């Protein structure tokens, strides 16, 4: 009998499940950023709203990259079901803290994919996912820089206004 399975797909089942989970995670990250953009806009932080809208688009781009990869290697790419996201935040600072937490979870999830693909000897996937490893370094750096601004500028008086202005410069700094 021909090797039906291998001729059709080069993905092992465990890796395919992990990749589809990552698609779901990136879609959820995109949705979380949208909620943050909405909150910032409602509360008068227009620049931060624009920053989060851009982040949301970026996360969706990540999701599509993985989605296309799964299709390319012959797996079944599953369109993700997104869980309900948090719409209200306690403070301006807590929005960015939530963003950083989200990026850290994504990094950890990416690392698990690298580990598993090494274990399964799937070097194609390992190579592919390395791009995300690097991308996450940048994302975490941006998220941390945003929180750092709160300490550097301070929130008293017109502090928050200046922080909001400085947020726009974060992506162009790197």
């Amino acid at each position, binding site marked *: *009998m021909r*090797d*039906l*399975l*291998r001729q*059709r*797909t080069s993905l092992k089942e465990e890796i395919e499940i992990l990749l589809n989970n990552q698609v779901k995670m990136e879609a959820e990250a995109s949705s979380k950023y949208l909620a943050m953009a909405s909150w910032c806009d409602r509360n008068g932080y227009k620049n931060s709203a624009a920053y989060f809208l851009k982040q949301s688009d970026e996360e969706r781009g990540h999701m599509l990259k993985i989605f296309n990869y799964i299709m390319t290697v*012959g797996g*079944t790419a599953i369109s993700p079901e997104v869980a309900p996201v948090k719409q209200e935040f306690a403070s301006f600072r807590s929005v960015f803290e939530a963003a950083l937490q989200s990026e850290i979870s994504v990094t950890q999830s990416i690392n698990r994919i690298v580990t598993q693909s090494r274990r399964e000897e799937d070097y194609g996937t390992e190579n592919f996912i390395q791009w995300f490893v690097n991308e996450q370094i940048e994302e975490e750096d941006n998220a941390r820089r945003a929180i750092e601004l709160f300490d550097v500028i301070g929130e008293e008086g017109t502090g928050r206004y200046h922080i909001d202005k400085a947020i726009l410069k974060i992506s162009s700094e790197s």
Partner: protein
Amino acid sequence: MEASFRILDFLNFRRFINKIDIRSKIFDLSDESDYEFVEAPQLNIYQKLTLCELIQLRDLVNGTHFAIELNSMLHELLYQESELV
């Protein structure tokens, strides 16, 4: 009931069958959980199965998957051998 799947459709069908939580359906006393609708649109399969039939189908599908994977493993080993010669 006869079905001949394409390999990817079969894998997705297996995933669907394995996801059905038969245990909770057994303990659920309502009428709806006595049956499960099993669909494979590309082969025009639309069946209503009882829980017993579901379990048998699940075993059949998993057994088939095992045979396919075993075949893959054998292919990998056999072609490795011929390259060494």
